[in-house]
């Protein structure tokens, strides 16, 4: 049985490596026999990230995939001004992910650490191998690293979508295989989605100069869907300082979050404006309840304010 070689595309941290490769094992074992395998795990390449984590920054979250996603904005208020801390929390868990990616794709059924090449040498003969222990092969010497652009693991060129298709949530994959692409100058379109709204909008970040501007614009854009019940918009006030924006968290029905270049979800308002426009890849208007994790209380608060 030849050794499968894959670029890592799952990005689960190490403990799950057995699960993520089990389909290969199954395939190898199959030989026409329906594999009885740990198939529940197979489909679970993408863990549903609907659960929120309540741990403090720095706590372990080993079974999360690279992107912490919603969990990060949980800590909005506490982490104001501590965005670095958020990042390290995230990168802690991400380390497993980026290791996986940097393992340069030699996940596989390694047979006593022997390389695939060795097996292949036998040219025509079919080499039968026992199903080996599942462990990642050592990091390759050339140590090629892919920049992992998104929170979930991405295989180069998979799914097979053309990069000109702008209307996807993924960023345009760079033309070069190995270089991180930079978005063009000129304009900086990012998608804005809002929980519960039937469609996405796109805005050009370059047309705004400050947080209050962008919140006002977004509120206008999505005004038909907000808020209604809870009264407080994203940025009802005209002169909104960055800290005001944070203050709105508790009261408002909706919270503005964004995904940065590393795939982490951050609260809008955490960082200086320029840094924000440099790193923001898309925006998401989340229900404040989800973001803060205090659903019942927030709703009550809203109701009482009506």
């Amino acid at each position: 049985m030849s050794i499968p070689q894959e670029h890592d595309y799952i990005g689960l941290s190490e403990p799950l490596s057995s699960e993520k490769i089990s389909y290969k094992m199954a395939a190898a074992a199959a030989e026409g026999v329906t594999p009885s395998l740990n198939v529940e795990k197979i489909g679970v390449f993408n863990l549903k990230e609907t659960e929120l984590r309540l741990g403090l920054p720095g706590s372990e979250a080993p079974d999360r995939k690279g992107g912490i996603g919603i969990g990060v904005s949980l800590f909005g208020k506490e982490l104001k001004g501590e965005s670095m801390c958020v990042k390290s929390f995230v990168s802690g868990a991400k380390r497993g992910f980026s290791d996986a990616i940097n393992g340069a794709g030699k996940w596989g059924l390694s047979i006593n650490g022997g390389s695939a090449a060795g097996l292949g040498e036998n040219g025509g003969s079919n080499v039968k191998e026992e199903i080996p222990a599942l462990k990642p092969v050592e990091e390759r010497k050339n140590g090629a690293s892919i920049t992992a652009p998104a929170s979930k693991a991405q295989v180069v060129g998979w799914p097979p979508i053309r990069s000109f298709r702008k209307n996807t949530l993924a960023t345009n994959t760079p033309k070069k295989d190995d270089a991180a692409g930079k978005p063009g100058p000129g304009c900086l379109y990012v998608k804005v989605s809002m929980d519960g709204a039937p469609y996405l909008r796109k805005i050009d970040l370059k047309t705004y100069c400050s947080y209050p501007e962008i919140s006002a614009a977004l509120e206008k854009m999505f005004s038909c869907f907000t808020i209604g019940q809870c009264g407080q918009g994203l940025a009802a006030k005209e002169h909104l300082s960055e800290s005001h924006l944070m203050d709105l968290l508790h009261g408002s029905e909706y919270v503005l979050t964004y995904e940065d270049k590393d795939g982490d979800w951050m609260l809008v308002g955490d960082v200086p404006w320029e840094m924000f426009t440099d790193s923001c890849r898309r925006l998401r208007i989340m229900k404040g309840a989800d973001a803060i994790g205090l659903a019942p209380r927030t709703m009550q608060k809203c109701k009482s304010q009506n």
Partner: protein
Amino acid sequence: MDQDHKKLKESPFPCEGLEKVLSFIDSHKDRSSASLVCKDWYDAERWTRSKLFIGNCYSVSPEIVARRFPKIKSVRLKGKPRFSDFNLLPQDWGANVHAWLVMFAKVYPSLEELRLKRMTVSDESLDLLARSFPGFKALSLSSCDGFTDEGLKAIATHCRTLTELDIADSVTVDIGGGWLSCFPEGFASLEILNFASLQCEVSFDALERLVSRCRALRVLKVNESINLEQLQRLLVQVPHLTGLGTGSFMQELTPRQYEGVQSAFSNCKNLQVLSGLWDATSLYLPLVYGACASLTFLNLSEADLRSGELAKFLPHCTSLRRLWVIDTVGDKGLEAVGLSCPLLEELRVFPIDPYDLDNRQGVTEVGFLAVSRGCPNLNYVLYFCRKMTNDAVATIVQNCPDFTHFRLCIMNPGEPDHLTNEPMDEAFGAVSKTCTKLRRLSVSGLLTDMAFEYIGKFAKNLETLSVAFAGSSDRGMQCVLEGCPKLRKLEIRDCLFGNAALLSGLDKYETMRSLWMSACNLTIKGCRLLAKEMPRLNVEVIQDEWSDETHANKVYVYRSLAGPRQDAPPFVLTLGGEDI
């Protein structure tokens, strides 16, 4: 008997007659067959061929072409392997059109049409093109790269008889829009203009004037920089369009503007193809309803509609044959397709969230089933989903046995049937068995060798096969190579097929256009063996960060009359038979 034989030899079929007859033959396959009959037919054919199709620019050289065909007016040329569309090919791999243009300029001064796919086209090349062919009419650049607005400026400025400029799907960076203003004031011959994929701002003024001059314009596809109000002004000039690509729908319209746009659309009675529709939402989508009665192709792949919006739209498009949508329409949206589009032949469903960043479900087997029930004429499908079942696919092909193109992409690699947890082998077995006209197949999901056994056994008309993250042993690939007599293109990525599989196709590859294998289990030695046994194949290994002295991570094999590439960059290794 002998006497008759001699007579035949003395008075052969008059060659003018033969040439006349052959000049009616368009299909390059038929012409190829004709040319093989005998020397006379070969000569007659080469003198009368005016349309050239080269499926792999490296399979032949410009010199060989120039020698054989003296009178070419129209060229279709394809370059890079298809996986370059998905960034699997390093930059500067090749497929540069320049050498071809130099030859065309020398040998075919009356060239009228050039259609390129996946080729690198520099500004210098476009300039050469613009200046070398006084009667040049049609330029189409599909999935090409390498040019900027400078090259387009040359085309606009110098091609006085241009009827078609189609920059479909070509991606350029940092391109300006000044080229559009370079069409001279007297220039009025344009019939097809498509710059939808260019990210640049053009002068609307120049565009409006151009459109008003070109009375024969039948296809106009603008880019996102054109808004609704501007679109209206264009439409009133050319209501007779048969193909329209709108600009962006993201604009706030006053009620008066709304009416104006709506009326402009309603006056487009001949529209067959509609695309663009960026950011079209329920607010403004109804603007186009009036133009859709004779629509045969609706491309909504840039408009992330929901099911309700699609369901409201479709009843206005009663003649629809081809539909492209984004999976935000969901299974419910596809149910609406099944109900409203009985004549549908082609469906493509693209994912809005290919990397599952937002845990969006997209579409499943339910939607596909619904379409198959309502659209029995379906023959082309491209379907991106996260869940599928073997049973559903079997039912789908029972409902629609006429599939010629079946491209199913279950986006999670190695995903099994989500109800039974079994591999998806039976699904593709059903496709292969039931769809006897199948020419193109893309497989996905958890697949063992069984799937490939089915394909090899039943898919006798298969020409193109795409495989990813599949198979359990070399035998899988072998089954396909041995079983599919018409196979022309085989592209494989991230499978465990190794040298044995590669070498099992020794006799096959010369009958094929090309083989691509990446992230499989091939070694340099295995590839060298192939190269040694089959000297008329180019066996190329692309070195990248995952290659080393032994592992051949990206392998491209193709037949060629031109020998090894002369223009190969340093990271492309053409293997010969030496040093086994």
